[in-house]
């Protein structure tokens, strides 16, 4: 029996070993180091002096940090709820289709999600191109016949990137919604239509409340994902003025990798880290509370 236990421990040790080494070295250690680094004035690579909370004071009074926080929040606002609503509508439309039609439609909506961000960027950068892009056919009539660069005109930058992001990622949400819709038993709808409940009433009284747990999941996953936004925003801002449209991860990147301020970058990263943890806990609690009502 003791021999058995010992061999079980040994097997567990070997099986769990790779996980412990990988997560210890590449997750736990960098996390600790990040917090430590945030209290020093170190450059990106190299040692630094302990400066206490100076980096945090510096960042929190930095206009660019407020810009980055605002822009990130704005991006979240432009993407999370619209994407969820559009995805739910598409999922309901796709769910009533059958056979090849459903497969084809689903593939059309889902394929973009599988593509690398740089492919998405290059494709849309061409579509919105100020000289030859297709979007200019729509833009010109609204802009006095003149073409306009949607990513170089600052007020249009975030909405444009948001639309591209929604196009890119909605397939994922549609997938989750369709699975949720399939879990709603058809008998409930049959009972409702016997009671002559109209489609809108059926949606309000049956679909919406029953799909709510999925909606909450979709909202939470997206909120966390969009707070960490970097790729698209960075790519679309290449060659233009980056500061007015900077987002939080881009701010970390700028401090650490472009200005060689490792300590300040780590402080910004720690703040983002804290924000995401607090928000994800809060939102999860709030959504769950509403779902339980």
């Amino acid at each position: 029996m003791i021999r058995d236990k010992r061999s079980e421990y040994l097997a567990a040790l070997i099986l769990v070993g790779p996980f412990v080494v990988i997560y210890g070295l590449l997750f736990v250690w960098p996390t600790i180091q990040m917090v430590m680094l945030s209290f020093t004035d170190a450059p990106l690579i190299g040692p630094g002096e302990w400066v206490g909370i100076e980096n945090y004071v510096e960042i929190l009074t930095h206009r660019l940090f407020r810009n980055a926080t605002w822009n990130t929040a704005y991006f979240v606002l432009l993407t999370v709820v619209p994407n969820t609503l559009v995805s739910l509508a598409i999922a309901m439309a796709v769910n009533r289709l059958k056979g090849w039609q459903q497969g084809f439609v689903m593939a059309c909506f889902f394929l973009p999600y599988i593509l690398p961000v740089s492919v998405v960027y290059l494709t849309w950068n061409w579509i919105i191109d100020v000289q030859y892009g297709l979007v200019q056919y729509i833009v010109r009539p609204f802009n006095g016949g003149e073409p306009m660069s949607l990513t170089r005109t600052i007020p249009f930058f975030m909405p444009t990137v948001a639309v591209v992001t929604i196009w890119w990622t909605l397939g994922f949400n549609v997938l989750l919604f369709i699975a949720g819709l399939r879990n709603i038993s058809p008998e409930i709808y049959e009972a409702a239509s016997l009671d002559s409940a109209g489609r809108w009433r059926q949606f309000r009284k049956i679909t919406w409340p029953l799909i709510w747990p999925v909606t909450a999941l979709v909202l939470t996953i997206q909120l966390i994902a969009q707070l960490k936004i970097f790729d698209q925003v960075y790519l679309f801002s290449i060659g233009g003025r980056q500061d007015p449209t900077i987002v939080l991860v881009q701010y970390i990147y700028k401090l650490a990798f472009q200005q060689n301020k490792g300590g300040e970058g780590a402080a910004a990263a720690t703040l983002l880290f804290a924000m995401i943890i607090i928000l994800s806990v809060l939102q999860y609690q709030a959504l769950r509370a509403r779902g339980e009502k």
Partner: protein
Amino acid sequence: MSSEAITRPAESAARLKGDRLIDFGGLALTIVTLGFALMAIFPVYWAVVTSFKSETEVIASGIALWPSRINTEAYEHIWTNTNIGIWYINSFVTSTLITAGVIVSSAGCAYALSQLDFPGRRLIYVLILACFMVPMQALIINHFVLMAQFKLLNSWAGIILPQLIVPVTIIVYKQFFDNVPREFREAAQMDGAGHFKTLFRIYLPMNWGITSALAIITFIGAWNSFLWPFLAATGEATMTVPVGITQVKDAYGIVYARQMASAVMAGLPVAVLYLIFQRRVTQAIMLSAGVKG
């Protein structure tokens, strides 16, 4: 939606008539859905079509939905004038090794968590849970510092290591291993099979479907990842395809056929993987999302 409102049957006598109207409305809704699906896939189509045009045709006025002549000049240019061959090798090697590393370490860890009793189980759970919360984007600075210390920047190992953190895979595996009937393990151990044999001969083969699904989705994720390879590989010889195609953009100026050709080449492997293994990809995504809820 509005056509449905008309068909709302007010009384049972009108319902028969209403049903026929619903069919009509349903057909309209199907057509609208198909239309939206075509709109959703259009940017992808447009990128592919553009890549087969000549540069002069690309900037010609009007919307040509098909190239006047299939022209592979853009592809030839990308193939001979950029390092895309090397980027392909880098992407394939790193994505494959990330996939192998994630699958092996996750399966081992999940088996231990699911089937074995050993000290430190709780700690591992805490670690996995913490990992779900922490944004990897916040760790870029310290991953960079760590890789610099190991002298692994601009190397395959440097690109691979931080991407081995995929906690979802462990949880999905554990859920599946939990559902394997105990008798299988007991029978195997009666026959004198150790834990490794049990894992590799029984648990993994029994869950072959989920292993392939997780492997495909991990590969796609690794192929598509942008931020970390973008930071870790600064030399053109060590870039991955999605990073490379954005970095050399300026080298060929505003020549959209070539940009689209590079985009198609970057997206093709994952698009093909998705189209072949649609069911597996969606299965893996659903399972991973289920864990996050």
